[in-house]
């Protein structure tokens, strides 16, 4: 097969840079990024469970790392990613039923995903600090 002209200056289909950023687009991108983050974050979950199962010394060692300021920042972001991905996922389940796809509804759902995830994350950490 001839490969001549494969690199010719052909018209490209429009991609991200050609569209105005909308909240639904941004939340779609964030949904995927938080998904990938949570995928990698399961390493922390497995590590924590292994530590708990390994005995007090190793558990305290891991707890100190999780409890350091960088550890707490990562866990806070992990919480937000978890809640954001969950709310975004519920939004997708609503869309699967054919509802909420109109212009006002989809913008409201996207805004609610963002605002809700931040609010719930902060609330969970306040509760976590209060009950400890």
């Amino acid at each position, binding site marked *: 097969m001839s490969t001549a002209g494969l690199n010719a200056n052909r018209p490209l289909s429009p991609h991200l840079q050609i569209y105005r950023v909308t909240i639904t687009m941004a939340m779609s991108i964030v949904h995927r990024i938080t998904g990938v983050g949570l995928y990698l974050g399961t390493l922390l979950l497995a590590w924590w469970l292994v530590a708990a199962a390994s005995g007090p010394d190793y558990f305290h060692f891991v707890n100190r790392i999780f409890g350091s300021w960088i550890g707490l920042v990562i866990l806070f972001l992990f919480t937000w990613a978890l809640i954001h991905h969950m709310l975004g996922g519920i939004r997708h389940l609503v869309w699967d039923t054919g509802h909420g796809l109109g212009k006002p509804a989809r913008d409201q759902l996207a805004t609610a995903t963002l605002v809700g995830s931040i609010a719930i994350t902060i609330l*969970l950490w306040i509760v976590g600090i209060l009950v400890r």
Partner: protein
Amino acid sequence: MAGERIQTPLRRVLYLGSAREGTGHFWRQRLTAVANVPLVIAFVVIVISVAGRPYPVVVDRLGSPLVAAVLLLMVASVTVHMRLGMQVVIEDYIHGEGVRIAALIASTFFTVLIAVVSGVAILKLALGG
């Protein structure tokens, strides 16, 4: 002959298409997503209830039958869900066929590893005492 079907009647009834999967990926993604909602909410409650507690309390709570069962279910549902999600991400962004297949295999190994390591740790907490 024009219009003649190459598919066998069985293939047509199963309706699994050329990838032989049909809506399997979509359906498992949704099924695990629905399962993840209550399981992850329960997980967050569990984590808050043990955060900052002394070691014996943490082990006792994580190892209690109901909590351990919820943790096992969550790990199972989450790892299936994340494998399906990462599969889509890999298929979208990695275009070289060899690298793509290698990445898909690596992702499957990673998710199985997370599932088994977490599962063994939970079972040890529940049964090892």
